């Protein structure tokens, strides 16, 4: 890391409070509070959806009603009143936009504050951004470039309108609406999201990126992302999240589905820094996400990289189903919790095909009064001959009021596979600190350094733009937790 970046991190550290706590006043088109069939019909009608989509939502809703909220996670929160949430908030309908000039200036300002000015990104970063603010895709850039390669990258609603056959074919095949409580809820009320289709043999020339942002008060964000890579396709997809400061907890229940066919590769990176609540544990986002990738084809590969620093509650298990022979699943995660944050996160690797391989590297860092759990499943089915898994989950404790927990499940049903799991829990050793102090590095800086080094293995997997941001976030999250 250069000196410059180090200084930047320190600057950020000294600033402290939640950096992205602002609120853009855009006129909202709100659904009535509460969840009934009418709400779902309202959402569907607002989005001008076809009949089959409404049917899907209603089926999911009826299934959701039959379910109970899961309680197995190592999380404690007051019961969520699902009838006290506004399920749909869209910026007032605007005429079709052709250039950025037509976009609401306030909205553009929001992007500027986030540091992802569409205008700049368009030219400099070479990143196509599908920015999502409170559920409706406002502007998608670089679509033309992508279209040349035959890549479809658009909002989910557009995909429903323009590519219904693809949506019908793939939606719900990896995460069916019956999967779990929050997946059923999302399937019923999802507002928008991103859709990405990489045709046969195409390597995406750009890193695709979406910014999610929860804006209006009391609205849940229900995103749905679907990525399909056909034979030999490759895409690196980035998801970044921020939410403004709000006192009431906001609910977020998203679904991400990835499908990789023969020889395809999908890399999915997330930096999640939603509002974690203040120092007393007031407010913050409840984040219940179902993310799953299906390595459907032979030699396909799905890689999840996540940096989780935000949200007061995180319930998230990006998983891989390794169905094709020789397919590969990877999971790299850094989860940081501070103050009263709680995270229960990890992965599932389900080996079905022959010679499938999976790697899990999870780094948990807990500080303040937070609780950070790793929960993971490695399942080797009888047909997964010669499959291989390696898992490592380390926890770092900063302070004596926090908790770090590890709940790995290993289920092996065949004798030719090798599964290894190891985990350690420790704190930053006095020796390491002493060494740094002795070299003239003060304790706070030293801890920043050590934590970054500790998480390096995962941060290195992130695309460049994200890696810098993630390092900063780590330091900001841990600010005030040490000393």
């Amino acid at each position, binding site marked *: 890391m250069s000196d410059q970046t180090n200084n930047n991190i320190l600057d950020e550290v000294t600033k402290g409070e939640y950096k992205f706590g602002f609120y853009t006043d855009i006129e909202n088109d709100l659904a009535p509070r509460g969840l009934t069939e009418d709400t779902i019909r309202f959402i569907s009608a607002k989005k001008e959806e076809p009949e089959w989509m409404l049917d899907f939502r209603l089926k999911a809703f009826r299934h959701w009603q039959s379910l109970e909220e899961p309680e197995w996670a190592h999380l404690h929160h007051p019961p969520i009143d699902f009838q006290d949430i506004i399920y749909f908030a869209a910026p007032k309908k605007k005429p079709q936009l052709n250039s950025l000039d037509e976009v609401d200036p306030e909205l553009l300002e929001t992007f500027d504050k986030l540091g992802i000015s569409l205008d700049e990104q368009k030219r400099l970063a070479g990143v196509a951004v599908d920015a999502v603010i409170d559920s409706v895709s406002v502007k998608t850039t670089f679509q033309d470039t992508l279209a040349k390669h035959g890549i479809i990258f658009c909002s989910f609603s557009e995909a429903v309108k323009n590519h219904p056959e693809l949506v019908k074919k793939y939606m719900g095949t990896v995460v069916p609406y019956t999967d779990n409580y929050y997946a059923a809820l999302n399937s019923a009320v999802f507002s928008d999201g991103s859709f990405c289709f990489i045709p046969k043999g195409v390597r995406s020339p750009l890193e695709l990126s979406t910014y999610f942002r929860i804006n209006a008060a009391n609205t849940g964000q229900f995103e749905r992302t679907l990525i399909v890579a056909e034979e030999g396709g490759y895409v690196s997809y980035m998801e970044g999240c921020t939410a403004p400061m709000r006192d009431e907890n906001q609910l977020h229940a998203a679904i991400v589905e990835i499908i990789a066919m023969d020889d395809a590769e999908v890399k999915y990176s997330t930096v999640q820094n939603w509002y974690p609540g203040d120092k007393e544990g007031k407010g913050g986002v409840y984040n219940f996400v179902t993310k799953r990738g299906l390595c459907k084809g032979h030699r396909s590969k799905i890689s999840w990289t996540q940096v989780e620093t935000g949200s007061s509650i995180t319930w998230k298990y990006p998983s891989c189903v390794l169905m094709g022979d020789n397919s590969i699943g990877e999971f790299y995660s850094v989860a940081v919790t501070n103050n009263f944050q709680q995270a229960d996160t990890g992965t599932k690797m389900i080996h079905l095909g022959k010679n499938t391989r999976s790697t899990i590297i999870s780094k948990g860092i807990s500080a303040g009064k937070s609780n950070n759990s790793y929960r993971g499943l490695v399942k080797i089915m009888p047909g997964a001959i010669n499959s291989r898994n390696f898992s490592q989950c380390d926890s770092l*404790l900063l302070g004596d009021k926090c908790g770090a927990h590890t709940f790995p499940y290993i289920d092996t049903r065949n004798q030719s596979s090798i*599964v*290894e799991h190891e*985990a*350690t*829990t420790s704190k930053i050793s006095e020796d390491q600190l002493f060494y740094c102090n002795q070299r003239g590095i003060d304790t706070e800086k030293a801890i920043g350094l050590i934590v970054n080094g500790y998480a390096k293995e995962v941060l290195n997997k992130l695309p460049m733009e994200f890696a810098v941001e993630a390092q900063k976030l780590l330091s900001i999250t841990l600010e005030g937790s040490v000393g």
Partner: protein
Amino acid sequence: MEKDTLQQALPLDQMLIEQYRKNKELITANDIQYVSKLREEAFQTFMESGFPHSGMEQWRHTDVDVLTEDAYLNEMEVPDTKKDIEELFRCDIHNFDTETVSMLNGWYIDKESPLKTLPEGIIVGSIRQAMKAYPQIFEKYYGTIVPKNANGFVQINTAMMQDGVFIWVPDGVKSAKTLQIIKIINKEEQLFVQSRNLIVLGKNSELSLMHCDDSVNQQSSLVNTVTEIFVDENANLELYKLQNLNDQSGLINSTFVQQMANSNIKTNTLTFNCGLIRNNIHVKLDGQGSHADVLGLYLMDKQQHIDNQIRIDHNVAHCTSNELFKGILDEDASAVFNGYIHVARDAQKTNAYQNNNNILLTPTATINTMPFLEIYADDVKCSHGATVGQLDQEAMFYIRSRGISAANARLLLMYAFAADIINEISIEALRQRIDDMVKKRLRGELSVCDKCVLHCGAPEKEYHFDIDLSKI
């Protein structure tokens, strides 16, 4: 006895509930008041909870329904046994002199007296007799080491236990010989057996204990054992559990240990054979400087199922624990391991290690391993590991290139894998014996003997690998 036989048609839980209600006086006949009170509380809890089922997180890999939905005979009174236990069982480990205590079908068999004092001062006897002789000890320890929210098996044991072994090692007393508890099931009917043991080690005392569960015929049975162990300051306990029951049997074994400052325990659970076995071991480290070694080895085949649930609570600072379970699974056997290390807030300077290694020999053997850590203190060193694999092909090649047959190479490697646990046995004679048994078991020669696990029918015989040393 007649009324019990009539109820045999009912599933176990209903049968027990009815039996408790009808025979309350009989059950509590030998009780001190304190124990009766506990029985009633536990019975109420059982009425609400019933037996655990596979819908519960901790039981989801072990289907006990097949056991609990069956009908059993539960004896309410001491049967009039004329059989000589000596004849049934003879322990003759070479150079291994033990003090034995026997239980037949869940009842304490006393040759001389139901409550005796060994020369060094250790008091051993039937729990029925002991509670009247030492009510103050019972009031202090009995039922206090078992957590209040324990599962249905523990509750029904507390409610309806009839007999078991009581051991009290007074302060400063050290056992001269290993004490051996032999439990044998031999009955024509399908039997449900509950036994309850209370073991108290006073300050600075020492005890070496061996606990054998055996069946002597091929009739199925369900054994539900609860053992409470209190280890006072500076005391030292070695506990060996040998489990060798027939393929039809179910064994639910719950052991709860409470350790005070600077105490040491070492438990070694060796499972050779049993249809379905569940070992719950729960160690509470309640005194600073205490240490627990919890080890285990399981060698399962056919359609056997083993479930080891090990929980270690680090409640105070400066405690250490070490968990190591190793297993070899053959044919359609399945195994579950769930290690749980809980480090309480402020239990600083904890050092806990947990490891589970498994070898699967066939495509149909399965293993579920769940090494959990729950940590609320920061100055700790906790690590865990779990591996599932097969015999190392390179090692196999190396051995075979030295002219050793594939079958022998396999045996050697499996034996080496198991040796980590066997070598931890500190009583030399016992270690050699177990060593032989493991070799026999790996060769598939060890069936449930018609006698005890340790009485393998023959004069002392060394087991060697059939290797031509001249070729090496």
